């Protein structure tokens, strides 16, 4: 039997649609994104509609997630970052749910496609840059000049700082994408081993169970990392160095 571990990432059209030569079909990726958005909305909106002072089970989950993000923004983005809590919360919830829904067998992992993660990362990058320019004007360029460094070294350090700034959307996107791609491919490969070795399948299945636990950890952790790095970039833009 041939193992095809990348089959799970294939996009196929559910409702074919084409307007003006542009293919805007409703795909399985779009379907999963719709489900993710609906699930997040349902969790957050419905649980707090009849909000009570003593929260029920679902309401306390929503409150815990929200407080977690508010706490993260407060500690990492510092003073004056409160207006950006809704953005970071949306980002965190979308990535978290997309990662976790992707782990359900026969579903689709939206974040395993670099175009999705790159779109999220470039939104963060452009948004943070605009915030920095609006807030500090030309002073924003001081972000690239480390303080207390002799002038001779600046020739070397400024290009490095600029490179590390402009590489941010790429590292942010590739980190999430590579984690999801590698994790799901690994699960599929060990699943293929299990199908191939017959009676000894207990070994690869055991490894797969352990890997699955790791993947759940990674799914949560990568959403956390994406959100916390957004906070740190926001901190740079709001307070420079």
């Amino acid at each position, binding site marked *: 039997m041939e193992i095809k571990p990348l089959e799970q990432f294939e996009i196929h059209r559910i409702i074919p649609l084409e307007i003006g030569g542009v293919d805007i079909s409703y795909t399985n990726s779009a379907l999963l994104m719709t489900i993710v958005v609906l699930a997040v909305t349902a969790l957050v909106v419905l649980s707090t509609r009849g909000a009570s002072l003593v929260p029920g089970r679902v309401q306390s989950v929503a409150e815990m997630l929200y407080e977690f993000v508010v706490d993260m923004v407060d500690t990492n983005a510092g003073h004056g970052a409160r207006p950006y809590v809704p953005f970071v919360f949306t980002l965190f919830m979308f990535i978290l749910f997309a990662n976790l829904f992707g782990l359900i067998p026969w579903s689709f992992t939206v974040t395993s496609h670099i175009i999705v993660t790159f779109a999220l990362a470039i939104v963060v990058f452009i948004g943070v840059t605009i915030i920095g320019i609006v807030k500090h004007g030309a002073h924003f360029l001081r972000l690239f000049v480390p303080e207390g460094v002799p002038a001779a070294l600046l020739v070397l350090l400024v290009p490095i700082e600029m490179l590390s700034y402009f590489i941010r959307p790429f590292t942010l996107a*590739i*980190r999430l994408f590579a984690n999801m791609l*590698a994790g799901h*491919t690994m699960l599929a490969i060990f699943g293929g081993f299990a199908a191939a070795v017959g009676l000894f399948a207990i070994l690869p299945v055991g490894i797969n169970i352990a890997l699955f636990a790791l993947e759940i950890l990674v799914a949560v*952790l*990568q959403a*956390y990392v994406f959100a916390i790095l957004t906070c740190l970039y926001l901190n740079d833009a709001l307070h420079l160095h």
Partner: protein
Amino acid sequence: MDLASAKMIGAGLACIALVGAGVGIGNVFSSLIASVARNPASQSQVQPFAFLGFALAEATGLFGLAIAFLILFVF
């Protein structure tokens, strides 16, 4: 050398990237254990950073692993 064997060797070479991830993750958690052993009260403050470091270190190795998978199964 034909293409199939070159692909296998290339994928194997790409997996060397995971050495760095292993060293990195080990380093993160050894530092966590050392610091918590010295000051157990600091665990709640240090642990989030450890997991952030774990995720960042693991990601660098997975770049290599993703390349290996792409070589093996896509091209």
